[in-house]
């Protein structure tokens, strides 16, 4: 087996002015993605699953621990807390 796929090095975390991690949103809250961080492999998966700056995200489930579920571009995506912490959103109306 070869090495891990996202070995191209980390892309630096983006400026987060006005943004907070997706993991801090409660269930039912909405936000608009303003920036994303992580390795190339992770960023690639995030973008192909619908997360890009400007995309509207609704958190469907967030119990404050463990993974969370959100809805982006009408698809239900489950993601780990760590991964959700690398997506920065501007909080929208409840």
């Amino acid at each position, binding site marked *: *087996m*070869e090495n891990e796929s996202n070995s*191209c090095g980390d892309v*630096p975390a983006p400026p987060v002015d006005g943004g907070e991690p997706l993991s801090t949103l409660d269930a039912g809250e909405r936000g608009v993605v303003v920036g994303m961080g992580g390795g190339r492999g992770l*960023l690639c998966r995030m973008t192909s699953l619908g997360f890009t700056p400007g995309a509207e995200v609704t958190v469907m489930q967030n*119990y404050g621990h463990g993974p969370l579920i959100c809805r982006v*571009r*009408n698809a*239900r995506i*489950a993601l780990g807390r760590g991964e959700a912490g690398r997506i920065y959103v501007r909080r929208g109306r409840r």
Partner: protein
Amino acid sequence: MSSFHSVDVHDVVVADNTRAEGMILIALAGQPNVGKSTVFNLLTGMNQHVGNWPGKTVERKEGAFESGGNEYRLVDLPGTYSLTANSAEEVIAREFIIRERPDVVVAMVDAAILERSLYLVAELLPLPSPLIVGLNMMDVAEQEGYCIEPEVLEAALGVAVVPMIASKNVGVRELVEAIDEAVSGDGSYEPKRPEIRADHQEVLSQIEGLIDGSVPQPYPQDWVALKLLEGDREVTGMMQAYLPEDRWEAVHTVLRAHDDALVAVASGRYDWIGRMIRAAVTCPKAGQIGRTERLDRWATHPLWGLVILASVLGVAFWLTYAIGAPLQELMDAHIVGALADWVTASTVGIGAPVWLTSLLADGVVGGLGSVLTFLPILFVFFAVMGVLEDVGYMARAAYVMDGFMHMMGLHGKSFLPLFLGFGCNVPAVLGARVIESKRARLVTILLAPLVPCTARMAVVAFLAPAFFGPAATLVSWGLILLALLVLALSGVLINRLMFRGQRAAFIMELPLYHLPNPRTIALLVWQRSKEFVLKAMTVILPVSLVIWLLSTLPTGDVETSLLAQAGRWLEPVGSVMGFDWRLIVALVTSFIAKENTVASLGVLFGTGEGQGLAEVMAASISAPTALAFLVVQVLFVPCVATVAAIRQETRSWGWTLFDLGFLLMVSWGAGMLVYWLAQLGGL
């Protein structure tokens, strides 16, 4: 052993035949969960071949169909969300289109998740093959409050768009007609190709200028430039090899200055998709709470989700044994038993020597037969698992198990393959393919043999009652829990020591719940059972013949055979747990197939397999020794079929041997610990 490689060789041959005479090549592309396999099965029926992509552990499905006087060859590309090299699947899909140049690529799209699933279409359009879009799940989109006008989308994209409800066989004929039309067309295929955002136009043409003339055939130059900008691992490596050093340095400098381009390029694609669908989607989404959301409030709840999972799996086991076990007994008595009797009668009838009768009746029929009688149980288990997968529940199971899997540096996706291991470890090892991260896949494969399979539990079910009477059920459950505990601890250990606690990223789609499709499930069951039977036929037969020889040579008597001598030689290793040579030999023969343990004990204790064996053993073996034996048996080196699967999937003898050594140590260690505790506890 050459049989380990048979799959690969076979597949290379298939791949070479891709361009068969007079057949039109169609590739089927799409993101996961868009109904791609439903369409593939509807088009090809049983006329399909499942294998591997050459050199990869990714499944390759291919089939044929006829329409309008044309003969079509349909290749199912792996389901991928994008075409950027992130795992083997994306590379396979795009390399196939670029190198094999299919006459048409059919891109399946989920109408209910139109924007997101057109992302792959935006990646497919810049490639050379003409595209047809299958707009699937129109009924779901309608339920979700979307009104989509396919004609408008067709005009916007400039490619044929066929509305479909594949699960109800709606639109498949129209799709075939569109394919007929495309291959017999006048070549007027002019799609609207997604353009790159203005702010990256300049850097893109700069890169294109630098690589001009150095791009190897048959890669499109503009596509290579775009993938470089996206930081694609494979394309970057390829161009680094093909470009002269100074020009690569220049390209590299440009790329370093734009290392945020990956997200920008993806955003550009969604902007383009937004423009394409703006006119085609007429009523805005109502945003109502659907059936899936209501079910998920329970199914993904941190507490209730686990309760539901435990109940679902409990019912799955109950169904498996309630339906499978009687079938197994029938098969054992009426097919395998009858066949062995017939072989004995007819060989004796023609005056064959005793050793030949024994070889055929015990070695061949007995060896294979005892393995194949597990088929009914596996069949039912795989059917139940297939239903759970097809309705979309397994993604939820992965989600609620994610927390536990974290401890092992894995995530929820490893849960399904590991759970399949309760049926048989072979599909568990092969099932690890669903995991994208190579490291997480490797750990899952290495841990899979620690899941107690039906055959191991059959041995426990046979021996435990004789030694522990009414406590036998407790012992059986205890052994399962012990195996899972050892699995968890081994996972933590392997992850800490060998991968320094790294963890795979967890991000996955939760598909909509839908009614099970009998066809999809039947094919899944067929495939997994076939994996088991193929391994049994190709690997178990030769090894069981070797073991038969070792137990017969040189005198024809087991007690003095080579196998017995080896067992006696190993006795000191087992004596710490009170094992005599017979128990060691039984463990060695379990390497062929776990259920052989019982048959071997029957021969070695001189009672045969039937009545009385357990009682005879109980009379000569102490309870702590029996318990230690069961512990070792449950955790021991897996059967040879599983070992072959591990070798095939890891493509490494190193990891395979590491796993065997590890399991040997773990099983012996746990056995000694349990023996010591049992003696201490005065059992």
